[in-house]
């Protein structure tokens, strides 16, 4: 299994603060890889570096063996790397369907002439893309809400809609930034089922999450981050019993003894 | 040469004064007051009426017109800004444009279309320095502007009102938590900005003639100056204004007087394209 994504000794320094300190990790093709760590460990910063918001101060990022660090987010997304956001970023005023259609923007070639004159070619391409989006909505259980405004969806529905939009990009790698945050138990259970389904479809997932039940249940491998440094990596049971990881989360055990 | 420099600096000081008026409001309420040019015109007209029709001594006329403009600033804030404070900035900007249209035409109705001339405190007198004659009024403008800048620095740094206004400008939520009456501070900011405009208007009248259209592109130029200097920064507004004033005069003399106004905006677009922080602005960016 060769790595789909390789993060090679990247560091991100914000004016003296080393948010990420020469982190190296890789995500294997087809695996569900989790990145965990206490708040402020630099998880989201790593995600932002990978998805092109920040140019890392040092280090390289390879995706599908192509160097992507520093290129802008839309090029990275077209290369097949989709992401969701910690605090949902949907196009609130557009309909649910339109949100997903925008995800598919780069894959649907309507052409200038088609767009202006709605030629038969345009209608065919448009119809096909609508059907695909509806299928995605069905997968995430939002099919009946297609024409409603994203703003009117519940928080859980918005989270899932954002995943649908990311899926519309037919990504090779899906970055999920705390997808379970704010979900109730049934919604979390649905989420686990959905991510399993995605893995079945051959989509590699990099997951940032605090909900340990979700992480331990879903992840093939876990990387633990603390103060921007990698302190552990391996499969779930190794991580569960790793002394350093427990300390990072629960603080010094001996301090209470 | 020196003549050009002096009149350039004088014009620059006017731009600086007006730019300061714009920046002060922009920092406090994140809105650009496109009617600032017309405020200057209003200040000039009030001073002209006081001296010419009511025959008040010049300095009294200056003081009264500045106070009247302060009152006007309060009313302007209540009418044009307050009902719109929650609205996006474009709505407020267009509202100020509406106000400037109203002021321009109302002034023409009240004071008539004829431009008025009223001499500055030094009247026509020129200062002969080594074969170069400099208009006394220009010197007055530069001196008064420097004085105002120094006053503003102490006012904002030392006095409690000044500090409260600065706090409101930086962060309205935090300011309310500190017990500062934010809406009162915003009112003071508008009042202060109108007083600056009055000062500019009064100083400018002898050079510009008082007319309904004197403020028209003065507001735009001053806004451009504040961006060139670095929008949001007080020193930026002042230095940007002076820079623009001198640039214009020399461009007019040595390149072509026709395109004088165009230079101001060409420099503006270059600055916006390559150095949006402006010459003296500090780096401000929003986190993702």
């Amino acid at each position, binding site marked *: 299994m060769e790595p789909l994504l390789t993060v090679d000794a990247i560091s991100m320094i914000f004016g003296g603060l080393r948010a990420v300190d020469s982190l190296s990790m890789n995500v294997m093709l087809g695996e569900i890889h989790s990145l965990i760590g206490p708040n402020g460990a630099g998880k989201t910063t790593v995600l932002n570096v990978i998805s092109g918001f920040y140019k890392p101060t040092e280090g390289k990022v390879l995706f599908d063996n192509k160097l992507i660090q520093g290129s802008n*987010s839309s090029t990275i997304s077209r290369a097949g790397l989709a992401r969701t956001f910690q605090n949902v970023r949907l196009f609130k005023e557009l309909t649910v369907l339109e949100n997903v259609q925008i995800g598919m923007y780069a894959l649907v070639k309507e052409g200038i002439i088609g767009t202006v004159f709605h030629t038969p070619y345009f209608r065919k391409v448009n119809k096909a893309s609508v059907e695909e989006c509806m299928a995605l909505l069905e997968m995430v259980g939002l099919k009946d809400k297609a024409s409603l405004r994203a703003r009117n969806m519940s928080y859980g529905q918005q989270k899932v809609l954002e995943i649908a939009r990311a899926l519309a990009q037919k990504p090779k790698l899906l970055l999920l930034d705390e997808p379970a945050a704010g979900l109730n138990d049934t919604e979390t259970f649905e989420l686990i089922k959905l991510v399993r389904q995605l893995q079945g479809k051959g989509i590699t997932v990099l997951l940032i999450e605090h909900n340990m039940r979700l992480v331990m249940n879903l992840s093939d491998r876990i990387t633990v981050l603390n103060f921007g440094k990698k302190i552990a990596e391996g499969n779930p049971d190794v991580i569960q019993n790793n002394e350093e990881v427990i300390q990072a989360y629960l603080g010094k055990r001996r301090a209470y003894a | 040469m020196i003549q050009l420099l002096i009149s350039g600096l004088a014009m620059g000081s006017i731009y600086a004064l007006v730019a300061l008026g714009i920046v002060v409001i922009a920092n406090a309420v994140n809105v650009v007051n496109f009617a600032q040019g017309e405020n200057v015109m209003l200040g000039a007209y009030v001073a002209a009426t006081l001296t010419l029709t009511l025959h008040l001594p010049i300095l009294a006329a200056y003081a009264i017109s500045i106070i009247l403009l302060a009152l006007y600033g309060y009313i302007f804030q209540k009418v044009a800004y307050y009902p719109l404070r929650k*609205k996006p900035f474009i709505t407020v900007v267009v509202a100020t444009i509406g106000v400037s249209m109203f002021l321009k035409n109302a002034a023409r109705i009240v004071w008539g279309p004829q431009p008025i001339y009223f001499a500055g405190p030094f009247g026509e007198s020129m200062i002969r320095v080594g074969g170069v004659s400099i208009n006394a009024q220009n010197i007055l403008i530069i001196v008064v502007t420097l004085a105002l800048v120094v006053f503003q620095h102490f006012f904002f740094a030392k006095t409690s009102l000044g500090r409260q206004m600065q706090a409101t400008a930086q962060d309205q939520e935090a300011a309310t938590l500190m017990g500062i009456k934010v809406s009162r501070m915003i009112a003071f900011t508008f009042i202060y900005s109108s007083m600056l405009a009055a000062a500019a208007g009064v100083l400018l009248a002898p050079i510009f003639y008082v007319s309904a259209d004197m403020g028209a592109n003065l507001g735009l130029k001053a806004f451009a100056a504040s961006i060139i200097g670095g929008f949001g920064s007080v020193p930026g507004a002042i230095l940007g204004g002076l820079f623009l004033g001198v640039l214009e005069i020399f461009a007019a003399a040595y390149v072509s007087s026709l395109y004088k106004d165009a230079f101001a905006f060409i420099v503006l677009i270059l600055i916006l394209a390559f150095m949006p922080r402006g010459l003296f602005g500090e780096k401000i960016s929003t986190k993702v």
Partner: protein
Amino acid sequence: MNKKVLRYLVFILLAAVILSIPGVMPNNYYRGLANLSLIYVIVALGLNFIYGYTGYISFAQAAFFGIGAYTTALLGVDHHISFWLALPLSGIMASLFGVLIGIPSLKLTGHYLAMATIGFGIIVQMLMQNWTSFTHGATGVGNIPGISLGGFTISSASQYYYFLLFFVVLSILVTWSIEHSNLGRSFKAVREDEIAAATSGINLTFTKVFSFALSAFFAGIAGGLYASMSAYISPDTFSFDQSIVFFTMVLIGGAGTMLGPVIGAILLTFVPELLRFMKEYYMALFGIGIVLIMIFIPQGIVNVFAKDGQFAEWITAKRTARVESPQKDL
């Protein structure tokens, strides 16, 4: 009488009213106004792309309008190129300038973009005024050839009305089809949330510049039509104040909708003329009118009635006052 037939009937009625307007108008003065309002509708529809859909402010619309007018005028007068070739060139010329102003403005937001477009507008007007050898300078360009198609030359105001109506209907159809396409959605995505748009694969540079160029193209075509219809143009018409009027048309009518700019353009062409009897007071009232409208219906007429108007929510969304940085870190 199901909904579809009802809507069809309303459409027919509306078409009948619009087609009968030249007949209803008592004289050429009002037909002339109707023609002018049709031209302004095209400009407003163009401006709607960059402001209504993409959420970016442009005070340069009068400059694009002028560039289009001068292209047709100069091609016609100096090089005797027929109207039918000159018109598309006017659109293209204007959109080239649209790209020119679009690129530096990519990084700008809010006041800075507004100021850049104002600066651009003033520079263009100054060039028109002073580059006498090329633009005939301040004297303007006279006796611009009219519009003729196979021997038949458009002369009367009514003929112009139907000719312009064709272009307005065309512009509305193009606006409708773009709005219901990926491109249209990508504009709105940029308006809603640039960062999310970028991560969804939308190339922000292309989308913003294209939106600028598109709004400039509409204004350029309208400029070409204006020049041929009025036979004389001069620099002072394409001023910053005119850009403000165009912007207010879209704002009052209702940005982000198709009908808004149309209503705004018609309203702001007729109302000042009808306030004419108030002589010197009407401009002052016009100023107050703008302030009142900004206070009561900032989202514009159409959005008041279209309760779930997409733009309505965006513009009335509560905003915390903070100093926007001149540059969003993308």
